[in-house]
């Protein structure tokens, strides 16, 4: 019983309540409190991370409290490597997002002083952010599947309000689409969760006890489907991805970062932990169709991204492509690929986060998300252009930046996976490598059209990044470059739990050690 994780969840909740209860007109104070709280959470996460022993038990900082005995539900939390890095990701992103959306709720003015979004309640925005943080931590920390589900669904609400009341012109459409899409998936998952409970007949939802509880392959398939559809929608995987571009494009930049950077990871995280470990046979049976979907997402997302005229939509589609990589890695059933996928979840959070924020700053200056409205920004705002470029390069996973390592691991792990008649996976890896070319096209073309060339008239009025904005982007870029050359710290935490997963899936976890095979 360690109190750390409950504390980690409680702190932002308390912070949210405090922020919400602040007297009227104390907007600035609200922001500062929110920032402080999120930083406190970051520190606490650091403490937890420091105390985590990669070689130790799989789940650490475990805590269990009875919650709903009549349903056999426990408030059970604990982290393994993957969960830990994702919690860390959230803890890092939230303060950055808070800083980034410092003025989002005050009514955003463009460089020429026209109001894009009207003034809205600042306190609500930041307390929603903190509530969301608590839920993000909870969803990754939950070891009780019911608890996981509760957070999985409850998370939608704050995000729904953030998109709906602070977003762009089409915000309510986007918000509703986002909510209903996810809710639908979630409800299917709910059925599967209940089914799991009764079929397993263990009178508990605790994940560790349910691993391997379901033997009958047919049941496994049905339950797997229930979980997977929910996660596929969340991830999002082609063809259930269309909510993401709308949501991400309409959400305020900060919310978009959390949406794509963290919330969607719950989907891939769920696949890795629940779909695989609870239903190993079904997972193997469904691997091929899923791999096909993943590859489609990779290529399709990239191609559609090239054709976008709206920056945020473009970034959203690139994410769809990247999520394809993650799913591919998860189902490649080789430890390299899965470690890569897990690592990708983190790196993608940083990379896309940076890209969304940079784009957000750009858009805030002009009030238009359309690429065509920009041009030659580099001349007037070199800093902005520079950060934008670096973030973009991370998006096309340039070697030396963090996302490369993960993408490389996913692809090479998939190619070399011996999981199931590796032929198909080999092909999948080769096809997905084509995305490397497409990525260069969509990123650099966007950079060329926005940053390069002669400076467009309205762009001339742009100011370069101010200190706050630099402080938002600098840490992300630092992380991107740092983990680009030194991914070891993350991988050392991730690898053991991935190995554990593969052991539970009963896949020979020898892909790393299979040196010298073949020929």
């Amino acid at each position: 019983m360690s109190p750390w994780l409950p504390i980690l969840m409680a702190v932002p909740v308390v912070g949210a309540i405090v922020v919400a209860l602040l007297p009227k007109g104390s907007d600035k104070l609200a922001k500062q409190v929110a920032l402080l709280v999120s930083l406190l959470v970051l520190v606490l996460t650091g403490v937890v991370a420091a105390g985590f022993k990669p070689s130790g038990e799989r789940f650490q900082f475990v805590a269990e409290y009875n919650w709903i005995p009549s349903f056999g539900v426990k408030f059970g939390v604990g982290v393994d490597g993957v969960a830990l890095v994702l919690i860390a990701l959230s803890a890092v992103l939230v303060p950055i997002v808070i800083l980034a959306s410092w003025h989002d709720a005050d009514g955003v003015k463009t460089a020429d002083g026209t109001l894009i979004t009207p003034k809205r309640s600042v306190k609500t925005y930041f307390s929603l952010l903190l509530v969301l943080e608590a839920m993000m931590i909870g969803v990754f920390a939950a070891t009780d599947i019911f608890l996981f589900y509760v957070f999985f669904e409850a998370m939608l609400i704050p995000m729904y309000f953030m998109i709906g009341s602070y977003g762009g012109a089409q915000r309510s459409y986007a918000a509703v689409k986002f909510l209903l899409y996810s809710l639908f998936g979630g409800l299917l998952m709910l059925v599967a969760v209940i089914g799991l409970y009764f079929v397993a007949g263990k009178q508990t939802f605790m994940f560790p006890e349910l691993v391997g509880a379901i033997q009958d392959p047919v049941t496994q398939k049905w339950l797997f489907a229930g979980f997977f559809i929910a996660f596929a929608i969340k991830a999002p995987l082609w063809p259930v991805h269309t909510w993401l571009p709308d949501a991400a494009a309409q959400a305020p930049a900060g919310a978009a970062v959390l949406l794509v950077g963290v919330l969607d990871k719950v989907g891939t995280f769920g696949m890795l932990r629940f779909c695989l470990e609870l239903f190993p046979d079904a997972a193997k049976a469904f691997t091929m169709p899923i791999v096909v979907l993943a590859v489609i997402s990779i290529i399709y997302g990239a191609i559609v991204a090239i054709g976008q005229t709206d920056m945020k939509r473009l970034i959203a589609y690139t994410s769809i492509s990247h999520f394809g990589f993650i799913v591919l890695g998860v189902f490649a059933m080789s430890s390299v690929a899965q470690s890569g996928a897990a690592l990708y979840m983190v790196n993608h959070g940083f990379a896309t986060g940076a890209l969304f924020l940079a784009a957000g700053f750009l858009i805030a200056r002009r009030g238009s998300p359309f690429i065509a409205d920009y041009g030659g920004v580099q001349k007037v705002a070199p800093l902005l252009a520079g950060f934008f470029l670096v973030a973009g390069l991370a998006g096309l996973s340039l070697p030396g930046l963090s996302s490369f390592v993960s993408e490389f691991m996913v692809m090479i792990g998939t190619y070399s996976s011996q999981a199931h008649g590796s032929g198909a996976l080999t092909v999948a890896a080769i096809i997905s490598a084509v995305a490397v070319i497409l990525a260069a096209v969509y990123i650099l073309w966007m950079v060329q059209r926005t940053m390069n060339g002669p400076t467009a008239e309205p762009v001339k009025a742009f100011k370069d990044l101010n200190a706050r904005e630099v402080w938002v982007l600098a840490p992300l870029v630092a992380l991107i470059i740092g983990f680009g050359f030194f991914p070891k710290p993350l991988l050392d935490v991730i690898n053991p739990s991935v190995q554990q997963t593969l052991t539970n899936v009963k896949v020979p976890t020898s892909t790393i050690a299979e040196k010298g095979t073949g020929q």
Partner: protein
Amino acid sequence: MNPAIEAPTIEYGTLAPLLIIFGAACIGVLVEAFAPRYLRKSIHVPLTLLSLAGAFALVLVQTVRGQISTTASAMGAVAVDGPSLFIWGVILVLSFVCVLLINDEGHFVASAAAVPGSADEEEAEAHDNGTGHTEVYPLVLFAVGGMLLFPAAHDLLMMFVALEVMSLPLYLLCGLARRRRLLSQEASMKYFLLGAFSSAFFLYGTAMIYGFAGTVSLPGINKALASGNTLDPLLLIGFALLGVGLLFKIGAAPFQAWKPDVYQGAPTPITALMASGTLVAAVGAVLRVFWVGLGNLDWEWRPVIWGVAALTMIVGSILAITQTEIKRMLAYSSIAHAGFLLVGVMATYGSAQQNAGSLKAILFYLAVYGITTVGAFAVLTLVRDPGGEAGHLSRWAGLGKRAPVLSGVFAFFLLAFAGIPLTSGFFGKYAVFAAALNSGTQPGDSMGGWMAGLVVVGVVASAIAAFFYVRVIVLMFFSEPAADGPAIAAPSMGTVAVIAVSLLVTVGVGLYPESVLGVANDAASSLFIR
């Protein structure tokens, strides 16, 4: 040579809650008869509230003392068992808060008999200062009494009587709205005609079952089923007609038609009472009939209820999407919820323990749903136009800006209806779905797959349903306020209390459902007396 007729025994102790309510109602009538007009309200309000509170206290006492009778009371006419007591408690609480709503000014007409806009109406309005008909109170008490009796009735005759005692006052109450008289009267008439119509079916069904079983007491019927030929058309038809009457009361498709009209036309506090209390009572009665009376017939009735439940959920949630009147929308939502409840009813069969599990789920659902409903309607009463409550959805646009707290609360209730986690509604829904799937996974249940299918239907339905709840939230928060938006009436203490209580329960149960679940569990574990 006829033997001496020995006097019937009445367990006054167990029946005390009922007796209190009916007694208070009668006193209320006397008050109407003799007390001067200006005094009446000040007598009625404490009388009503006290009687409800007292009855509730008695229920508590019975449960706490734990001596829950295992045999039917009053010569086997009324069964005061665990579930009944739980249902009674719920009904009493709900009606208590509803009465708090009813106390508010301006809900009820001054003189129902007077023609709207006529001289004598104005004259009447001049006299009463917004209180309207004080007959409302005894009527409500009678209705509540009926509600208590309905699920506790142990034979079909008693059930019929209870049904009427519950319904007749409601018919009248529906017609007493102070504003929009025409709608109100129309609602009242429709409710009355259809209600009478359906109760006729109920009665004829009773007759046929009597013909089959030679008795109308539920256990008797069950015994007859055990021995006799369960395929006797007399029985099946009788049961079908009986079902019509019951399903009509809970508003299951295809007997849901009255709900939207009546809910919209009736005065909002009465709507709240019907949407919460009546539903609870009716579901309770359904459970008793199916478990106690037709326990041995589940092989026949479960497939039929399957269809009804599916249809109800779909109809309710789909029709609600395009509603523009908020009370109508809530009416359809309550139809959909009736469907979800029926999913739970599906699972109440077979082994006692299985039945107890499902029963727990349904009881829990009833409690949390009822209280949330009352809260939602209470909020409605506060959003006013010059012509009365602002019913049309378009009027709610941008309310979130003008009354953030109120709309926030309402939004929360809506999310609870939609069954979002961390609200009471979610656990209610979870409970019934779980019960259904559990019964499905019982060994040797040939309907396992069907149950799963029904749950999936339910899931899809609730996804659709989520849309229209969310739509209201979109209106309130994401769209700009209208120029001449509705006024927010300063809420009376009563209304504040109602909303506060409902919010507290919805949140509290949402965070820690065990609080209510435990009670429901105990109640259900001592099954319906058979």
